[in-house]
């Protein structure tokens, strides 16, 4: 009778598919890192060129920096060499003879490497070199990504052990990456919830970015203009201002859709531009910091700031918990209340909703207000928790990434939170990956894009991993199932 085994399969797949999407994206990202890594390219190709110091003729010679990348077998400035069991660094100008060694001296030590010309093997002559270089490039990149987003596990363990012994000094350094990831995730969670709530109600809110800006503007205004309030009054007011600002901004396209049929996708995009321009004008005019030249607002009062829990440069603040609470609230609203029932009904079948007596106007405006409010809260969160003033380059594109987040999280609050954590982690780790492994930060955008593609087009993942799904055409017509089950 029951189809629950199928349901369990489906649920398992719902979990498995995003995981496989992420893994696949990481693998493809790795390939991308490999093919764009100069050392790897050098290991795979044969580029015999003169190393010249300093750089003179670009036709035949390359600069020292490039040489460092392309000719790892050549002794050049910056290399480490072993002399009598001691690791020494090759430099142009020796200052510290115990750790450094001059370039000429190094070349003399290693005569088998010609003075300037390096012959490289092609991949097929020495495949191991190429593979090793490839593996190293990927490993360095992903280790940097991991350590930049979560932290170095050994450091973290040591810091914890030291803390237990009563020495908390290592904690900040060890847990800084994790803190940054959570800090980056927070606006992602909120804007992702905003878009997901809109999706559920059938509204494609592409305007989270603009609502984030407006929420930032309204909250920063309340944050710096009201003075002398206690924290428990001022902070909620400031956050509320962000919600109301973003909410009203969002409800304009909602109202336009309900009353005129103007499509919310177009109108929210247009509202984005208006929001950017409005923010520009306000920060260069009425809200410009007095006595300053830059288009930034005054700092908000201390009483309007979200508390931080740790000292030093750990920016982790209460906004993260606020975001989690909002996720719970959105879940409750959508699935446990009559309001959510209305929104979801309108989203799933507006025609049936109308027949059932649900007011489409009310639902559309409400959905867009709530959606905009969440995006506005994301703006307020960044103002009150992180930067304390409004700069004109306020957003890092949260509003646009949030569309992908909602998709990745299947418009479910829990899914959105997980997706936001993933995106926040990737973003935070990308910075370190760039500095350590010289991998451009854009690789993270590519990773995110690939994850989204695989989520949006699960057939690709199914094909790669040969996951069988009872395909639509291999299912009996639904009518046949239900009746047939009883036979």
């Amino acid at each position, binding site marked *: 009778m029951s189809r629950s085994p199928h349901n369990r399969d489906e649920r398992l797949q719902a979990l498995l598919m995003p995981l496989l999407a992420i893994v696949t994206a990481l693998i493809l990202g790795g390939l991308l890192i490999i093919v764009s890594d100069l050392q790897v390219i050098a290991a795979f190709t044969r580029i015999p060129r003169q190393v010249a110091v300093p750089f003179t003729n670009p036709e035949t010679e390359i600069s020292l920096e490039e040489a460092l990348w392309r000719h790892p077998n050549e002794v050049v400035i910056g290399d480490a060499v072993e002399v009598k069991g001691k690791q020494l660094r090759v430099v142009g100008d020796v200052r510290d003879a115990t750790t450094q060694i001059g370039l000429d001296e190094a070349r003399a030590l290693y005569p088998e490497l010609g003075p300037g010309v390096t012959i490289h093997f092609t991949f097929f002559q020495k495949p191991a070199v190429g593979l090793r270089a490839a593996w190293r490039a990927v490993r360095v990149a992903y280790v940097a990504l991991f350590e930049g987003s979560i932290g170095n596990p050994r450091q973290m363990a040591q810091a914890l052990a030291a803390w237990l012994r009563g020495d908390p000094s290592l904690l900040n350094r060890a847990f800084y990456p994790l803190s940054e990831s959570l800090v980056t995730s927070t606006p992602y969670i909120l804007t992702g919830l905003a878009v997901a709530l809109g999706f559920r109600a059938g509204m494609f809110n592409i305007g989270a970015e603009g609502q984030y800006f407006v929420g930032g503007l309204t909250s920063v205004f309340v944050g710096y203009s009201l003075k002398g309030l206690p924290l428990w009054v001022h902070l909620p007011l400031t956050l509320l201002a962000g919600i109301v600002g973003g909410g009203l901004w969002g409800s304009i396209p909602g109202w336009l859709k309900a009353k005129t049929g103007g499509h919310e996708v177009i109108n929210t995009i247009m509202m984005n531009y208006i929001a950017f321009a409005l923010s520009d004008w306000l920060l260069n005019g009425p809200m410009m910091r007095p006595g300053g030249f830059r288009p930034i607002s005054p700092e908000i009062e201390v009483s309007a700031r979200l508390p931080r829990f740790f000292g030093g440069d750990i920016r982790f603040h209460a906004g993260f918990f606020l975001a989690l609470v909002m996720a719970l609230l959105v879940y409750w609203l959508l699935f446990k*209340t009559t309001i959510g029932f209305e929104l979801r009904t309108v989203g799933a079948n507006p025609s049936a909703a109308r027949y059932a007596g649900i007011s489409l106007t009310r639902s559309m405006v409400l959905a867009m207000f709530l959606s905009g409010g969440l995006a506005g809260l994301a703006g307020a969160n960044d103002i009150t928790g992180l930067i304390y003033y409004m700069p004109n380059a306020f957003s890092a594109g949260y509003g646009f990434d949030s569309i992908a987040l909602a998709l990745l999280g299947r418009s479910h609050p829990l899914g959105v939170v997980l997706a936001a954590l993933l995106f926040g982690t990737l973003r935070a780790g990308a910075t370190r990956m760039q500095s350590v492994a010289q991998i451009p930060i854009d690789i993270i955008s590519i990773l995110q894009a690939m994850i989204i593609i695989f989520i949006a087009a699960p057939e690709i993942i199914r094909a790669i991993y040969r996951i069988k799904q009872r395909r639509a055409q291999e299912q009996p017509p639904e009518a046949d199932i239900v009746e047939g089950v009883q036979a």
Partner: protein
Amino acid sequence: MAPILQLEGITKVFPGVIANDHIDLSLHQGEILALLGENGAGKSTLMNILYGLYAPTSGRISINGQEVVISGPQDAIRQGVGMVHQHFMLVPPLTVTENVMLGDELVHRGIFLDRRRAAARVREISEAYGLAVNPEAIIRTLPVGVQQRVEIIKVLYRSADILILDEPTAVLTPQEVLDLFVIIRRLVAGGKSVIFISHKLNEVMELADRVVVLRRGRKVGETTPAETTEEALATMMVGRSVSLSVDKSPARPQESVLEVSGLDVLDDRHQLAVKNVSFEVHQGEIVGLAGVQGNGQTELVEALTGMRPSISGTVRIDGHDVTNASPRQIIEHDVAYVPEDRQQDGLVLDFAVSDNLILNTYYRPPFARGIGLQRDVIDASARQLVQDFDVRTPGIDTAVGNLSGGNQQKVIVAREFNRPIQLLIASQPTRGLDVGSIEYIHSRIIAQRDGGAGVLLISSELDEVMQLADRILVMFRGELMADLPADEAGRDQLGLLMAGVSNAQAQPQPEEVSGS
């Protein structure tokens, strides 16, 4: 003569379900074979196997005595099997010719569509079988009946000898059905063979040379119309005896519950679709609104339910003026409504059965307390309703879209009848349903009447109106042509009124034109 098509022991097993269980079937050239069965009996599965959409789990298919494997629709067409789907596969903005040649384009000089040659073939086919289709017409502008003929041309254009028509009459008006029958007879006269899928007994009796009845994946009978009766077929199909006529006691109308006077309503193109319509519905009676589709019934019902504004006139429910009230205000006056398009307007297909059962009462106690949904109460009520209304569903959490049409309609009926109602507006309540479900829905509607509710029944099936209604209104081009007691209304008279002939009292008219 050897059969042109022979199926032997066709079995199709889906996980947990045997959709087809050793079905044998043969079709001779020039024969109309009716495949009869309720929704879910396995007709569609069998035809999809024949059309190459599914591979049979076991069994053999022979065409012209040769065993074949049909690997897909393209292959099926190559082997001479063509299918006309219930839901048309046409591209509305393209012309008839373009639609017909789509996927099998005639070209000249390699890349240029040869529309002229294709149009000539379409015209040739159309004339050969009396289809009367203009090859240059844009699909969007054609009535449903003609669109269906385009589908038939598509199949003939690809030189199919065996035509499968999947519930072809479900979307047609009675007149279009007659036209279709004429066409089908011409097709077989021209040497084609037809498998006609249906669950409508009268059509099968009128059209078929031979009838095969499926029930729950098995072939339960094979007969000819001459050897059987509608009752016998119904029994075979449903597996128990069903009453094809409706038993009801005489109506005892009481006070008026719906009063419509001088109502004018515009349609989507801002044309007057309902013109100065006035009528009443009393408690304890069923008023049938008959008329050919598209004569303003839809707009009238939408105006009554608050879905469409009226431009003049009044609507009163139980004495309250509800002209242009919102749907919810009207629902609050204890009005139940079974919409014409159940999947579009009556249900949220992605939602669970339980959620669909509270679609218009979710905000009231006991389903809600404040803004909190009372999930326990909702689920308990859903379980009760599923049982009371015999909704065949794996569970109350199953998405309604997974249920058969009859069970979907039962969900709507369960929802609408689960509260005290004084007016029921039921629009095409049994369209596309099988005999068993129709019988059930009819009995429920009569139970509502006997419980004291006024019922307005809108149906394009004249038989349904005549069986159920106590009083019949006929609508033609937005106007009410007549308001007659049901027992005084004759079939011919109603038919003429539906065609706009108002002084049709005693003119003898021939019975239905059947093309034989």
